[in-house]
């Protein structure tokens, strides 16, 4: 990948235009990945900025054994997990009302499709449930469900076996089921 080599050389030498081009290319991808882990857009954007700073501080260690995008993705996942760890207590104990835009009396009807607003609420509900999961379960679930990665891709990125991915996914679903039921009781009390 000659273009990537030129870009990496530019990043390592601190070239401004190389950094601008790198940020422009990766900012939305990193932001969307961060948003999978964090239900709040402003916090996800702050995390995205921290990820670029981390890349800047560590680019001299990048040996191009993997592609630049894989390396950046790993940094993103690690930073997101650290964020979850730091903020787990805070987010998982937040009352569900803080995630809701509409009044709790608005209920979902089996017949009606969820409106965009209700979709936004639902996404925040599932993300709150995910913050309560152990880190590895949360990461595997997010990579598979939010980012659409296959089990094989996940096992390569996380460097774990396929059966480990399947097991983590199964445990994540069981834990999430319990968490969502408890959120349901909160939502409908």
């Amino acid at each position: 990948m000659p273009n990537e080599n030129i870009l990496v050389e530019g990043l390592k030498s601190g070239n401004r235009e190389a950094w601008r081009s790198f940020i422009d290319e990766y900012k939305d991808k990193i932001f969307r990945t961060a948003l999978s882990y964090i239900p709040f857009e402003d916090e996800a954007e702050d995390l995205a900025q921290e990820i670029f700073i981390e890349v800047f501080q560590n680019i001299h260690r990048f040996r191009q054994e993997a592609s630049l995008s894989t390396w950046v993705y790993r940094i993103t996942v690690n930073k997101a997990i650290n964020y979850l760890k730091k903020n787990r207590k805070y987010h998982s104990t937040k009352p569900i009302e803080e995630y809701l835009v509409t009044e709790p009396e608005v209920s979902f009807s089996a017949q009606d499709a969820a409106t965009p607003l209700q979709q936004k609420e639902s996404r925040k509900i599932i993300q709150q449930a995910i913050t309560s999961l152990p880190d590895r379960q949360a990461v595997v679930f997010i990579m598979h469900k939010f980012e659409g990665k296959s089990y094989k891709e996940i096992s390569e990125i996380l460097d774990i076996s396929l059966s480990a991915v399947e097991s983590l996914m199964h445990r994540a679903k069981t834990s999430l089921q319990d968490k969502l039921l408890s959120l349901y009781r909160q939502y409908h009390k």
Partner: protein
Amino acid sequence: MDCKKASNYFFDFVEHQLNEHIEKNFQYHLDECPSCQSKLVFFKNTLNSIDASRDRNPEVSFHFTEKTLFRIESLQRESTLWQWIYSVLFRKVSVITASFVAVFAGIVLGILFNSSKIDNTSQLSSAEQSLEEVYMASTSEDYMIQFFDNQYFIEDGNK
């Protein structure tokens, strides 16, 4: 199937991953339980929001690139400044350190040299002292008298 058992199957039901037999029983229960119907809707909407979020393409705010570049450039300037301070200090510190080491080594050598001289001097003085004692002893009057007495006695004895 009761509500407690049914609550284990919401996730798999929404994802169409239940086997035929369980799915049938689950459906029968749903048909008769408004509470589980409501829970199922909650599950469906929550899990479907994941698919909806995959279809969205959210973007960062307008000034994100400039803000991030500004932070990176500040860090670059900081690290250049630190590198300069380090190189200046390092040269000075290495000269100061070398001088200190030389002075310290000189002091230690000096102490070691002087302490070995003192030992020799004290050895000599103790030898001199014993010689002096012997001399004093040998010249003391008593010794003379004794010596002569002894000689006399011997002479007497011999006599």
